[in-house]
């Protein structure tokens, strides 16, 4: 069964990005936000991202209009009664997410699959809250969604094979490569990249090599498209720290302990691309100087 109508809860960076990619793939999207104003903000965010794509010659004005025409917003759950698939992308709060799943499962059709974009909260727990744990899974997209072609499909304890299959199909239609992971802190991507970034920071802190040289080493020497420190700046050093602390707390192993240099930079407010300064400095176009 292909997905024609997709419900998205939360139209922020992640939700908006998912909506944009889905609508680009000819899927009709309805975004739920608590207020009309937030719904409008979500559309403005998507429009701005589409404008960037136009500036990069990726799409045309008329394609932008067609994509936007497929996206509706609601401050209730209007439109969710006919969705085939729901993806939740609100703030990382167990209580708020649990509440959303209890609500949405009352509205959407019984056969609809529900997915969460969480990277830290238990899929099994949220699945139980939705009342349809077999049709529940995690779909962990990578920001910025329009540019990162990967999605991790996360199985909870009761997630059925069919549910996984339907999520895989949706990912394919959206042009994403899906990998399958089980519920575990950090899944695959975060679990691997955070310690790698952390180690790079130790190398800088211990004066073994400069930040620029660490990135050159990893890109030229190890085939990474971008060096780990530039990547960390893009992710936001505060986000890197939060994820690092999460892994350290959940898994307990010292190898996940955040590098002191990272903590210091976050305390100084040098958060990476978004503040113009992290391990490197960035101009007003977010390009590395």
């Amino acid at each position: 069964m292909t997905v024609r109508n997709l419900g998205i809860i939360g139209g922020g960076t992640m939700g908006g990005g998912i909506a944009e990619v889905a609508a680009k793939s000819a899927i009709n999207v309805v975004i739920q936000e608590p207020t009309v104003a937030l719904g409008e903000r979500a559309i403005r965010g998507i429009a701005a991202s589409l404008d960037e794509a136009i500036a990069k010659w990726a799409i045309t004005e008329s394609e932008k209009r067609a994509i936007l025409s497929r996206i509706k917003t609601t401050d209730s759950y209007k439109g969710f009664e006919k969705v085939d698939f729901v993806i939740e992308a609100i703030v990382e709060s167990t209580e708020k997410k649990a509440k959303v799943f209890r609500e949405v499962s009352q509205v959407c059709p019984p056969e609809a699959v529900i997915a969460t974009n969480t990277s830290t909260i238990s899929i099994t727990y949220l699945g139980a809250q939705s009342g349809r744990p077999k049709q529940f899974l995690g779909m962990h997209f990578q920001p910025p969604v329009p540019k990162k072609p990967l999605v991790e499909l996360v199985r909870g304890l009761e997630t059925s094979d069919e549910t996984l299959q339907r999520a895989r199909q949706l990912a394919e239609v959206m042009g994403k490569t899906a990998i399958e992971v089980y519920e575990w802190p950090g899944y695959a991507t975060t679990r691997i990249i955070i310690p790698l970034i952390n180690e790079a920071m130790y190398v800088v802190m211990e004066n073994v090599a400069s930040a620029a040289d660490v990135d050159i080493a990893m890109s030229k020497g190890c085939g990474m498209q971008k060096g780990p420190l530039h990547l960390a700046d893009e992710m936001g050093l505060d986000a890197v720290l939060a994820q690092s602390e999460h892994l350290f707390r959940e898994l307990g192993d010292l190898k996940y302990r955040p590098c002191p240099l990272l903590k210091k930079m976050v305390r100084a407010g040098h958060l990476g691309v978004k503040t113009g300064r992290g391990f490197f400095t960035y101009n007003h176009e977010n390009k590395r100087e």
Partner: protein
Amino acid sequence: MKVFVLNCGSSSVKYQLIDTDLEKMEKQQEVVLARGSVEKIGLVPSSSSYQVVQENPLFLPQRQSKLPPPEKETVEIVDHIAAIRHAIKCLTNEKTGVMRDAAEIQAVGHRMVHGGEKFKKSHVIDKEVLRNIQECVEFAPLHNPHNLRGYYATYDLFPNIPQVAVFDTAFHQTMPPYAYLYGLPYAIYQKHGIRRYGFHGSSHRYVTYRVGQLCGVNPDQLRIITVHLGNGCSMTAVDHGKSIDTTMGFTPLEGLLMGTRTGDLDASVPLTLMVKEEISVAEVNAMMNKHSGLYGISGVSNDMREVIMAATEQKRDRAKIAIDMFCYRITKYVGAYTAAMGGLDHVVFTGGIGENSPLIRELSMRNLEFLGIEVDSQLNKMENMVEGKISKGKVGVWVVPTNEELVIARDTIRAIQGVNCS
């Protein structure tokens, strides 16, 4: 025999119901019963248009204006199968339908964009043919999957009637290797099938046939250049009835300047662009296919009528340059193809721009007097010039409305009856 002709795009289905068979073909007594389209499939709302025609397709151009306007409605159509169901509903409607029952359809003809090297003519679709068409999907990822979707949908609806695939590329399979090969290592051609294929085959083939009919000489004895100017534009050198070269290449991007496509371009330009503009393969591809051509140069529109207006009424320089580029490339290829054929008897204009723009016909044919091409400006500008000759020189210059659907319907019959399709 009623043949249901289908042209399925990504979000549209265009169809005609044509009554034809070998005898009617011979006597030119075929009839287009009705035609229509469903557009914006999957959007809310989709739009549908349907028109009863009941005319001989060869007389149709002259009588277009006398037909009642098509019925338009907005409907909800979720996919291609629903669109085809809707078409059948229109065709069998009690008041405006042209048949009582869908069972009257005896064959279905499908337009397929890419047939690779496997298909040199039209074929009845069986398992083997289907597998081969699927293998060609990689050549035309934007077209072939939708064409196939149309086949699957009609197969679901009519599992027992023959369906025929008519390929845009088939007509050009007569090109010799020195015309279709690129100067890349030969191994690349062997490994990936990268070569010139050419497109718009059914259109070039129809106007070749038609101009032969209009001038009373079999195209087997003529050297013709066919100029298809629509959304996409291409020219073909038809030497004694066979395509020996065409401007579109591995994809429909090469050759003439088009609405939003670059046409001919030094292959190192996109590579340089990817570095200078820091863009990806997909982005540079979109730039060359969607942001370039008339639109990219003029900054006005991809629609030739609007570009001409901007150039003539608003005197916008870039619109004028766009038109000059457009026409210059046509002129250039007329010269090239005349040389390739060792002479020229006729030039035929077709497609939306070719059929409707006297200015483009005139500009692209000037400077060609030395070849015996002289456009008669009065004939060229005649209001009701829908089909006919517009020249006074040695070489005939013609306007012929294209009719790909008729080619598809005829090939469908021929393929079913096992008669030569080319």
